[in-house]
């Protein structure tokens, strides 16, 4: 699942809350935990506050902050652009957190939090725009919860099922594949096509699930076909000899035809 969302606010304090809500929603959609969502919320709040407090000499409706939230694979990228005066927050010195509280200065904590809570922080100035890029990686366990719900299944009557996993089939998500396969076999759909078009990574746990499915289907006089393998997955299967075990078809349609023609 990927997305790219945009949001613009006039650079005024009262608009920060809506910018934060925008980022909170994107962070939740990316599957971050409540802690991860908070980190993103805080980072954007701090960044916007600094821009609004320090970035513009004169208040004007043309002072704009543009926020982009893009999610791809396991990374949420938050880009904060503003047309204020050039300022690189990454150059701000961290507050000394070893100092006794009485000796503490009050500044610098906003940027410090951004750097500590986001996985990567970078800045560039181009085309008269400050551009702060923040990255937050989504931990695999949470990713698994999204993927478990994204095992698409297509029924082709009378007894063919196409299972379409989305994303990585790694150690955490192989159980979702196994559940989907077992469910189909239990429902009498003994001819299965596993469409791997969206799978970029296949773990050994998932390979075991596929082999087991192949065995189980054969016991029921059915078959498991694979289709739409990417080049790397194809090469992986070939390197361990599984391309001699599984029937691998180039397209979903050819796989369906193959199963229909065997009757």
């Amino acid at each position: 699942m990927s997305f790219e969302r945009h949001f613009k606010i006039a650079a005024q304090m009262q608009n920060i809350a809506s910018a934060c809500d925008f980022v909170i929603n994107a962070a939740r959609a990316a599957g971050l935990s409540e802690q991860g969502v908070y980190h993103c919320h805080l980072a954007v709040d701090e960044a916007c506050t600094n821009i609004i407090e320090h970035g513009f000499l004169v208040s004007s409706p043309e002072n704009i902050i543009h926020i982009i939230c893009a999610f791809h694979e396991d990374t949420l990228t938050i880009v904060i652009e503003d047309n204020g005066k050039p300022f690189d927050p990454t150059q701000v010195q961290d507050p000394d957190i070893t100092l006794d509280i009485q000796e503490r200065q009050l500044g610098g904590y906003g940027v410090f939090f951004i750097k500590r809570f986001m996985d990567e922080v970078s800045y560039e100035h181009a085309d008269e725009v400050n551009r702060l890029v923040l990255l937050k990686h989504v931990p695999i366990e949470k990713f698994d919860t999204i993927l478990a719900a994204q095992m698409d299944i297509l029924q082709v009557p009378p007894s063919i099922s196409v299972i379409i996993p989305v994303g990585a089939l790694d150690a955490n998500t192989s159980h979702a594949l196994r559940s989907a396969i077992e469910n189909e076999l239990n429902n009498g759909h003994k001819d299965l096509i596993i469409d791997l078009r969206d799978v970029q990574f296949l773990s050994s746990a998932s390979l075991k699930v596929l082999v087991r499915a192949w065995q189980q289907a054969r016991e029921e006089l059915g078959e498991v076909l694979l289709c739409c393998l990417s080049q790397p997955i194809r090469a992986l299967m070939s390197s361990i000899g599984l391309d001699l075990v599984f029937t691998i078809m180039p397209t979903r349609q050819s796989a369906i035809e193959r199963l229909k023609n065997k009757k």
Partner: protein
Amino acid sequence: MIEILTSVQGSVAVIEVKGRVDSTTASQLGEELSSQITAGHRFLVLDLVTVEYMSSAGLRELVNAYKKITRLAGDLRLVQPSERVEEILAIAGLDSVFQVFSSQAAAVSSF
């Protein structure tokens, strides 16, 4: 959105905060803390049970108030900051500065 409710229990001023303590609302908290100190209260309890969010702006008000009050031989103690608020205190290296209590009553009677 922020709501601040102050009550005086004996010699202790209890400030209950509800909502978000961010760059738009932190100054309200700062003002309330300041006015309690000006009114002569050296024992302050800040009840953060219903604070769902705090940014560096909120942290600054806490540090400011703490510095002021400890110079007057007083103290500022906290009630149940959430995990998220504790995390920012910890990242800022301030988690061992504030005494934390699980209830207002416990915080008040600690003085």
